């Protein structure tokens, strides 16, 4: 039961990264590919109807984590107190800037809020990567299963660690380039002509950066967290996840020119990478850098069985419904966005 919920929470977080990933990426990309106010509006229209619903996956995943693994939720949220609060502020700034630049008419303020949107999107991508880096590296859990991490200490991933060290910063930048690529592919999928051409150009350049960072982050993760190697050695079938990620990464470049296939490949890449991490960590949820006996695992963090069982019933129902809404919403807004006046927006 615990393992099942581990998979489900990981699944929800993955869906969140794939979906909100493209609108975070689009927020970063807009500054580089949109040269006029009109083009910036177009980019914002590609994500306008869906970004809010995409973000709900984070909230829903948070809630699911809360009830399935209360121990993990409590420990990790209080231990990552400062970075989480900063993430919250960035989410607030990002949501507000998006809404405001949509409602304002004054060009000066619109450009200001576009810049805030860019910065908040960029920093969020970095923080998400760094957060995952912290989980992989492990945190200094004490013998009561508690920890508190400063934002940074000496930037070394050993000893008294902080949220930011060279490894987690690396993970943050890796996430940033991967999500920016994801966003560029999304923009090229949803737009036409010069805007699309510029997005594709950017994607082609970013691809090399993503490839480089994939190698570097994979190598350093295996170096730093021996648990990963142990998991893969014990169950070699797990190599299917990294293989998926690498194949998908190659397919992104192969499918150059076919926007929808390239975007799908990018989704598969993100899924492959996150699944690789999840597989490598299991059965740990939050490894301890101090003493592996203190690690939070599926078994020592999960809620009681009755709740998990009953949760499975409503969760399944709820996610089926959510999937229906998403398919419906995405189909309604399928195709390229345009500036034509026949569509109302308010």
């Amino acid at each position: 039961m615990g393992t099942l919920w581990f998979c489900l929470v990981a699944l929800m977080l993955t869906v969140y990264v794939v979906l909100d990933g493209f609108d975070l990426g689009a927020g970063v990309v807009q500054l580089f590919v949109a040269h006029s106010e009109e083009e910036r509006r177009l980019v914002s229209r590609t994500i306008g109807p869906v970004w809010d619903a995409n973000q709900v996956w984070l909230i829903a995943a948070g809630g699911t984590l809360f009830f399935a693994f209360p121990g993990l939720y409590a420990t990790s949220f209080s231990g990552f107190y400062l970075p989480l609060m900063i993430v919250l502020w960035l989410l607030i700034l990002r949501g507000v800037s998006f809404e405001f630049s949509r409602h304002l008419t004054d060009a000066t303020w619109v450009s200001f809020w576009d810049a805030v949107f860019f910065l908040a999107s960029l920093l969020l991508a970095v923080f998400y990567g760094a957060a995952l880096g912290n989980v992989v590296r492990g945190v200094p859990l004490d013998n009561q299963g508690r920890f508190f991490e400063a934002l940074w200490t000496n930037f070394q991933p050993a000893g008294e660690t902080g949220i930011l060290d060279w490894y987690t910063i690396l993970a943050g930048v890796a996430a940033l380039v991967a999500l920016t690529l994801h966003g560029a592919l999304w923009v090229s999928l949803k737009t036409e002509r010069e805007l699309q051409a510029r997005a594709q150009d950017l994607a082609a350049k970013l691809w090399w950066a993503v490839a480089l960072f994939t190698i570097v982050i994979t190598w350093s993760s295996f170096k730093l967290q021996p648990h990963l190697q142990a998991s893969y050695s014990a169950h070699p079938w797990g190599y299917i996840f990294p293989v998926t990620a690498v194949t998908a990464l190659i397919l992104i470049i192969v499918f150059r020119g076919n926007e929808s296939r390239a975007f799908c490949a990018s989704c598969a890449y993100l899924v492959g990478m996150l699944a690789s991490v999840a597989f490598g960590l299991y059965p740990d949820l939050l490894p301890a850098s101090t003493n592996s006996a203190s690690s939070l695992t599926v078994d020592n963090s999960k809620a009681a069985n009755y709740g998990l069982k009953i949760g499975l019933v409503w969760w399944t129902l709820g996610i089926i419904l959510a999937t229906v809404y998403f398919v419906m919403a995405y189909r309604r807004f399928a195709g390229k966005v345009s500036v034509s006046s026949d569509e109302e927006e308010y």
Partner: protein
Amino acid sequence: MQSALAVDRLQFAFTITFHYIFPQITMGLALLIVVLKTMALRTGNEHYNRAARFWAKMFGINFAVGVVTGIPMEFQFGTNWSAFSKAAGGVIGQTLAMEGVFSFFLESSFLGLFLFGEKRLGRIGHWFSAMMIFVGSWLSGYFIVATDAWMQHPVAYSLGPSGTFELKSFWGLLLNPWTLWQYPHTMIGAVQTGCFVMATIGAFYILAGRHEDYGRTFVRVGVIVGVIASILQLYPTGDGQGVMIARYQPVTLAAMEGLFHTERGAPLAILGQPDVANQRLDNPLTIPRGLSFLTYRAWTAEVKGLEQFPRDAWPDPIELVYYSYHIMVGLGTIFIAIFVIAAFLLWREALFRRRGMLWVIMLAMPFPFIANMAGWITAEVGRQPWLVYGILRTSEGPSPLVSVGSAWFTLIGFMGLYTLLGILYLFLVYREIDRGPDAGVVASSASVN
């Protein structure tokens, strides 16, 4: 403020108070937008569609601020109250996760459709989206109230081996008797806010001589729904909530009423200042035997005063519970008066000529917000000193390793950010009111065209 506990509490109180300004508007407006869309569908009159579009814009702004200020609420359970989360997550995590899975997906997907796809959806489809936003936002309210109700009156749990609370009955948690009163009371409070917001802006348009046809529609819808809501708020929902408190939290009832000494035929205090040190109510204006009757339906029933309970079970501070309760009830009574008079004038077709009454409606704008806040303060401060009533003290809830300094850092951060947010919000809302319902689509897309 030397302890993290105090700062944690202050931060939660500050962020939740600011947050709840927005959901009460959106939950109320969601209902009223359905009313307007239904009128448009039934009469085929485009006027109602344009009115609905104006309110959808308002809804959109409020929803956005509500969402971004709502995420910190869910996160704070883990960040600032980890001991509580660890103990109670197996129970309240259920309702919080259900809120995300059942209502947020529904609400946000259909809001995207509603705001961006009127032409693509068609008339029925657009009405249906409005309906789904209403269902989504009211479901969300249910799960949150169910969560709070469990903290007010814990049911359907057992104590697990490691000192954590485990869920024993799913339906027991969802159908907590406390929820069944608190939920309608909360939602009708939100409807009243929505009604005042709509009627107030309508009254402003009529008084200012701008968009008067819309102004009349707004006032009419706001007043008719408002008169029903304001009466339901008193009876049966407010009354039912009061009975719950008398039964399960008698010490809170005593604090709310400022009743220090146990009495038969206890009086109902209308005004007066509680003097906790001397255990009496100064300058009291009371209705003799009123409290006994309201609580137990018997004029001579005995009502327990604060003296009956140990000091460490008293809500803290008593004064805050007492005043917020009295403010809530006083304003609720005034709302009934305003709406009943306005509805009477509307029925006599005289309301739109009575400028004095329109002024009253317009200036009433801030008060439903105050009444809703005061109600929540009564409930949550009244719950003290317990985090989960009777089983977990608030002092046992905070995160053990989050320092006072860290808590201050984030509290100050929230204060700064929310100040900015509040200013921007007021500016945007003012701008939409100024542009009026005929402005149609927002300028961003208009400027593109």
